[in-house]
């Protein structure tokens, strides 16, 4: 393995820009410092990136976070186990089901011998995968917006709307679900719900091809994203990237397959899903297009998983024997799951009481965002927007 010195350097990246080489032999002018954010369309929320520009060329970038810091971890130490669940909805508000799942699984890891009922596992998987599709649809749409294509965003939201309607039917909420509870799920699927999910899968498969052709294979889009914001494999690993960011750089790793939890191991053995990995199809491996493409392909894999769950689901209880006021045995556990953006980890520490001693949230957006400071240097202003967009952050999660 490599030594302490990374194999890529700032100088090299500066001379290998996405744009034309002429930009580097321009007339020398003084640099301009611009605040991109906290309210800027490209930052997907309230994040601030302080960029130093030489004309259109970005010569330095510094991310400033914390505008959406809501003390989630401190709140976790002050409310009861179950009461904290709605707060988990709020960090990655585009994938609230996944956050519920991560927290529930962390608490369940503290309860020795506790087994989640089979039907609950299947319902959890269906919801989590549908939520992953919804989240990736937002990523797809907003990335289009970043690049300047407005229409795909509205197409993506049409299908996302359907997923939200499905969630509304099963748990009554459209964005912050609190559906996956400690021990199982909150509500059984209403009659006909599973059939509608199957119908959604059929329709979405057709639409998905359209979406891919509309944006991912658009010539201008490829010109704007290929060879931009290249993260080499070793850099991705060094920065601790996870999820589509890591897979976009060609690292074949997915927690669902490689450290399986719930029914994912079984599903993978049954061939229910594959892990899409960036291949550098349109440019250098690990560029913005690869990351985008991984997300687009993952939507289809999630559809396959949902279909598999629909086949495997059977009747039974939907929640284990969990008391209303939960007292978790003393102990500590770290559980990481594959969120649409990467590894969402929860470290929970219980002293046997009704309230956690420590509730640490490891948000994937936070770690994935760290890479942009380096990536943006030496690119054009428009590329830096493409790079921020390709990290697909949710500011609610970077700041928690």
């Amino acid at each position: 393995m490599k030594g302490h010195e990374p194999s890529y350097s700032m100088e090299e990246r500066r001379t290998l820009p996405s744009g034309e080489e002429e930009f580097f032999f321009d007339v020398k002018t003084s640099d301009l410092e611009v605040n991109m954010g906290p309210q800027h369309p490209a930052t997907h929320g309230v994040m601030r990136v302080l960029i130093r520009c030489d004309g259109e060329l970005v010569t330095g970038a510094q991310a400033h976070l914390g505008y959406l810091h809501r003390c989630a971890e401190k709140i976790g130490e002050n409310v009861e186990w179950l009461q904290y669940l709605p707060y988990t909805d709020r960090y990655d508000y585009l994938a609230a089901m996944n956050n519920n799942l991560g927290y529930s699984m962390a608490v369940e890891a503290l309860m020795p011998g506790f087994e989640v009922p089979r039907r609950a596992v299947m319902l959890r998987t269906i919801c989590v995968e549908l939520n992953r599709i919804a989240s990736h649809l937002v990523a797809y749409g907003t990335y289009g917006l970043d690049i300047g294509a407005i229409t795909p965003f509205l197409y993506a939201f049409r299908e996302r709307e359907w997923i939200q309607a499905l969630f509304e039917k099963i748990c009554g909420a459209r964005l912050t679900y609190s559906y996956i509870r400690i021990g199982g799920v909150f509500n059984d699927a209403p009659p006909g719900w599973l059939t509608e999910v199957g119908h959604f899968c059929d329709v979405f498969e057709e639409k998905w091809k359209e979406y891919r052709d509309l944006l991912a294979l658009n010539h201008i889009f490829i010109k704007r994203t290929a060879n931009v914001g290249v993260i080499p494999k070793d850099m991705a690993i060094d920065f601790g990237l996870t999820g589509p960011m890591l897979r976009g750089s060609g690292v074949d790793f997915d927690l669902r397959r490689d450290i399986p939890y719930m029914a994912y191991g079984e599903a993978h053995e049954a061939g229910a899903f594959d892990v899409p990995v960036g291949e550098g199809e349109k440019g250098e491996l690990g560029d913005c297009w690869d990351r985008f493409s991984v997300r687009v392909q993952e939507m289809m894999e999630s559809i396959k998983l949902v279909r598999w769950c629909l086949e495997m689901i059977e009747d039974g209880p939907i929640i284990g024997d969990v008391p209303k006021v939960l007292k978790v045995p003393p102990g500590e556990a770290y559980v990481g799951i594959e969120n649409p953006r990467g590894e969402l980890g929860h470290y929970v520490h219980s002293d046997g009481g009704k309230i956690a001693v420590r509730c640490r949230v490891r948000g994937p957006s936070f770690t994935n965002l760290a890479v942009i400071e380096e990536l943006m240097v030496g690119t054009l202003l428009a590329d830096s927007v493409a790079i921020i967009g390709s990290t697909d952050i949710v500011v609610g999660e970077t700041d928690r």
Partner: protein
Amino acid sequence: MELQAIYDTLTAAKVAGLLGCDEPRPSNKKEKDPGRSGLPFLMVDPAEIVPLLTACRDMPLLQFDLLIDLSAADPAADGEDLWVLIQLLSLKHRHRLAIKACLPKSALIMSSATAVYRAANWHERECSEMFGITFEGHPDPRKILLPDDWDGYPLRKDYEFPTEYHGISCE
């Protein structure tokens, strides 16, 4: 690889700073031991964290190439220690390692892991503003989530909530 095997591998390589394993155990009512549930941790000496992490990363049997998380915990307000918690992940061997280092509250200094994993950068910044731990050798020791003029370390158990911030009442 299970934690015990990882521990044995590290011991065999004579890596410094290993203090043992913190394994879950069942409760024992006779000895009034409430037991410990959850997942196992590797206990290490915070002073030796950098060589240990380097060994974890570079040993072919372990190859923990991703630093997933670095955070801390304050288990008790009257306790003497803070825990520094590190989560590692191996892409090749597909195993995880949870590391726990007890840092005395009287001397909250340890060396930065950024030299080993660049992923530690932002995690350490968050950790130091929330718990007051100083990471020696950190390239950019600014606050990250909190405002620059924030007093105190909010995630410590002895933290007192401020009554006002810049003239805005918080009560």
